[in-house]
Structure formats: structure tokens, C-alpha cells
């Protein structure tokens, strides 16, 4: 009980430089969120979680997310068991307006095309020696959808959940940096200037029927997507039915906020440098970046392919919104379009491939899960 034993029980005794690196990463996340407004709702909880997770815990004391019986381990259960992501999807469903998608169904296919990033990254990860389960979980980073990535990792490769989640959210935050160069590279100035027709009005009836039918289609084709899409479309039905406004309101406010806080913090706190900073993690970050690039390419090029057959040309920038990363990639599309032609307003149109991309990657996750899961 002397000074030495106190020192040995303090964080100073066990702090390693790799923990300091991770703490610096956490601080950078918070800095980016505060000063650059990059996805602050995700980066601040994750960033602070990283800082907390890299304080060296006292040997045997129930402190870290990995310590049996610790409070953080209970909060982390919602990540490990895959409970938080569907609840977030419930809230997102209660926020999402599928109107533009309903008014221009052609744009939905762009959300399918962008999923090429998922499968190419899957193949790349296999090539580099990851197991099929790990490769599937890494591939889904290309879906650009945080909750989907966390859900699939927790089911297929929980040992990689930390790096996959951090990679997914980092790149989602960096969408305004990653996507524009690729969009410029694969489109001509003339293409970027294509104006879209204003969408038609969508009736209440169409909006109410949509979540039910869309759920049935997706769940029958890929039952593995039932958990995420069931909650997404359930939330949307709560919103569109007009008679459950108070439930939709709670789902898209208190509920999603509580889950976002717990999810972000505990994912961040799971990144102890000792298990996080491995060569695997670096590979995952490289694969994740590649996957975002490929997905963006996939969307843009598929739009150009569709234009070969369509009379009313699609602005191929919209393809980039197919990666999802809702709603940031839609905003990036809008911003690039505006740069080229200050009268070209793509934001609302970009929401169609954007939300279709969410559905698309949930289907992809369902397919990967059902084929690769260890049941």
C-alpha cells in the first residue's frame, strides 16, 4: 500500500506508446468532428471511446469492454450481439423519406451497382489470406453503412469488429475527400452538367405500401437481410402510416440517440491498441479505402452504362451516391454538380440512389451472412 504499489495501480505504469497513438487518433476524430463538422454524431462518441479504451486498465479489475462484468462490457454487449445496428436502422427508417426513389425508380439501380465495392473487396481480402468470414466482414466496409458493417462483423468476424467499424466510420466521414476525385476522373464536364427532371408527386398510399412490399421482396430474396431491413422498413412504416407519429418520433429521436451514444462509445472503447494496432488492421484500412473507391466507380460507370439505353440521360454523378454513406455522399454529389453548373441541383435526386444503396448493402450483408455464417 505504498507509493510504488499506487504507481503500479495507476495508468502511468502500464501506458505504452501504442496507447498514446490511439489516444491521439481519438483526439483527431474529435478535432475533425468539431472543426470540420465531419459526421460529428459518430466521430465524437467513437473518438472519446477510443481515448477511454486506451487508458491502461488495472490488471483484473472490471474496467475495459473486454473485462468480464465491467459496465463497459455490458454496454458493448449491444455491439457484440448485433442489437444496436437494427435499432439504429429503426430510427433511420423513421427519418427516411423514400419519395424521390418512388418517383424515379430507375435511380435505384445505381444503389445496386455500387455494391460491386463490397464483393470486389471480399475477393481482395480472400486473396490477401483472410478467412472467408473475415473477408465478408471486411467487404461490407464498401457498403459505406456503419450499422450494417458492425452488424455483419459481429456475426461473421467479431475479432475484427473494432478495425472494421473504425474503418467504415472513418471513410464515411471522409466521403467529401475520397469521392470527388473519382467523380471527376470518370465523368466529362458535359455529363456533370446534365440536369434531372423534377420528380413527380408521390401519393400517401404509395408511401405506406412501399415499406411492406419492399421488405417482402428483400427478405424473400435474402432472408439474412431480415433483421436490418425489417427494422428499417418498420421504422419507415411508423413514419408514413401517419397514425403512429408519436412512435416514429421517439424512434428517430430518443431511441436512435441513446443507441448512437452507446454504440459509438463502446465501439471506440473496444480499440485497445494492444489488440487493435496489428498488421491486419492496417490491411483492413487499405482494403476499406479501396472498397470506397471501387464502389464510387461502380456507381458512376453504371450510370454511364444506363445512359447508353436511356432517352432521359442520368447525371452520372448520381452514381456516386449509390455507395450510401447517407446523406453525405448525396451532398457531395450535389456540391460537385453545383461547382460545374450553379443551376444544377442534384441533392434530392441523389437521395434516391443513396437510400437504395442502404437497401443494397443490407441485401449484400444478408447474402454474405447466410453463405459464410458458422451456424
Amino acid at each position, binding site marked *: 500500500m505504498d507509493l510504488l504499489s499506487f504507481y503500479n495501480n495507476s495508468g502511468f505504469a502500464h501506458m505504452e506508446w501504442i496507447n498514446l497513438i490511439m489516444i491521439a487518433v481519438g483526439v483527431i476524430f474529435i478535432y475533425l468532428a468539431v472543426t470540420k463538422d465531419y459526421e460529428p454524431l459518430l466521430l465524437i462518441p467513437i473518438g472519446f471511446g477510443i481515448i477511454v479504451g486506451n487508458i491502461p486498465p488495472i490488471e483484473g479489475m472490471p474496467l475495459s469492454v473486454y473485462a468480464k462484468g465491467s459496465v463497459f462490457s455490458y454496454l458493448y454487449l449491444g455491439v457484440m450481439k448485433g442489437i444496436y445496428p437494427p435499432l439504429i436502422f429503426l430510427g433511420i427508417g423513421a427519418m427516411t423519406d423514400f419519395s424521390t426513389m418512388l418517383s424515379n425508380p430507375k435511380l435505384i*439501380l445505381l444503389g445496386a451497382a455500387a*455494391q460491386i465495392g463490397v464483393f*470486389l473487396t471480399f475477393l481482395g481480402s480472400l*486473396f490477401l489470406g483472410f478467412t*472467408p468470414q473475415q473477408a465478408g466482414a471486411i467487404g461490407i466496409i464498401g457498403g459505406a453503412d456503419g450499422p450494417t458493417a458492425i452488424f455483419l462483423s459481429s456475426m461473421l468476424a467479431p475479432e475484427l469488429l473494432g478495425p472494421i467499424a473504425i474503418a467504415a466510420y472513418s471513410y464515411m466521414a471522409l466521403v467529401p475527400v475520397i469521392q470527388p476525385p473519382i467523380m471527376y476522373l470518370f465523368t466529362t464536364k458535359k455529363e456533370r452538367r446534365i440536369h434531372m427532371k423534377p420528380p413527380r408527386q408521390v401519393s400517401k398510399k*404509395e408511401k405506406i405500401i*412501399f415499406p411492406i412490399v419492399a421488405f417482402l421482396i428483400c427478405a424473400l*430474396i435474402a432472408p439474412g437481410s431480415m433483421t436490418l431491413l425489417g427494422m428499417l422498413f418498420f421504422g419507415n412504416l411508423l413514419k408514413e402510416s401517419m397514425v403512429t407519429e408519436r412512435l416514429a418520433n421517439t424512434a428517430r429521436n430518443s431511441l436512435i440517440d441513446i443507441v448512437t451514444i452507446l454504440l459509438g462509445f463502446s465501439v471506440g472503447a473496444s480499440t485497445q491498441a494492444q489488440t487493435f494496432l496489428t498488421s*491486419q488492421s492496417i490491411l483492413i484500412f487499405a482494403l476499406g479505402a479501396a472498397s470506397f473507391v471501387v464502389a464510387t466507380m461502380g456507381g458512376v460507370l453504371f450510370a454511364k452504362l444506363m445512359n447508353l439505353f436511356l432517352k432521359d440521360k442520368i447525371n452520372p454523378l448520381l452514381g456516386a451516391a449509390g455507395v450510401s454513406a447517407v446523406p453525405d455522399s448525396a451532398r457531395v454529389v450535389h456540391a460537385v454538380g453545383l461547382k460545374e453548373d450553379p443551376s444544377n441541383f442534384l441533392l434530392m435526386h441523389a437521395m434516391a440512389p443513396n437510400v437504395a444503396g442502404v437497401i443494397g448493402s443490407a441485401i449484400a450483408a444478408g447474402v454474405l451472412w447466410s453463405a*459464410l455464417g458458422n451456424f
Partner: protein
Amino acid sequence: MTFTNIGLHNLNQSGLDALQFSLMGMALVFAGLLIIAIYIALLPLLLKIGTGKPKQAETSDSTNREEEEEILLAIATALHLHNNFPDGDERITWKSHGDMESPWLVSGRMHSLNSRKLANNWNR
């Protein structure tokens, strides 16, 4: 992971032909979203057919009269409640419309109770 295991042979392990699987996966993603797109494109047509028939204006008159009567009753109820129940004394609570803080909301409910008989209020 030791990086000693890089190679194309990884794409064909433990009974999984990864390339074929990936193509199949992309096909399923496209299938799902394509069917949704087709459904969306066809729905307005279907709805038009569906609502084509029941557009019979015949019942509207009697319905309207019945409805009007109910509105008058609802207003009467509302006024009664307003006069006889001092503020904050009664909130019927929960379900459908949250707290009923004003008697006007109660009247709204009364009205909607009646309108349950109306067949074609799907479009409201």
C-alpha cells in the same frame, strides 16, 4: 495472419468458389433492387385500376349528412367538456393522439370514431 498465404488459391477454399459466389451475390443485390424498381414503376398503374371502380359518388351525400351531424355533436361535446370540467382536471390519455389536453382533441376523436363507417377514407 502472416502474409505467407497470399494468392489466388485463397479464392477457392473450403468448398467456396468465391468468384462465382460474388457474381451470384451481385446478381441477388440487383435482383432485389430491380424487382423493387419494377414494383414501384407499376404501382401507380395498379392503384389507378384499383381506385377506378369504387369511384361511385352515390354514398357521398348520405355520408356527408351523417358526418355533418356528428361534427355538430362533437362540437357540442367539446363545449360541454370545456364548460363542466375545469382545466387540467381530466386527461383521457394515451393511445392514438397522446395526451388530450384540449377538449377539441376529444371532439376530433369522436368524429374519427364516426368516420370509421366511411369506406373510402384511405386517401386522407
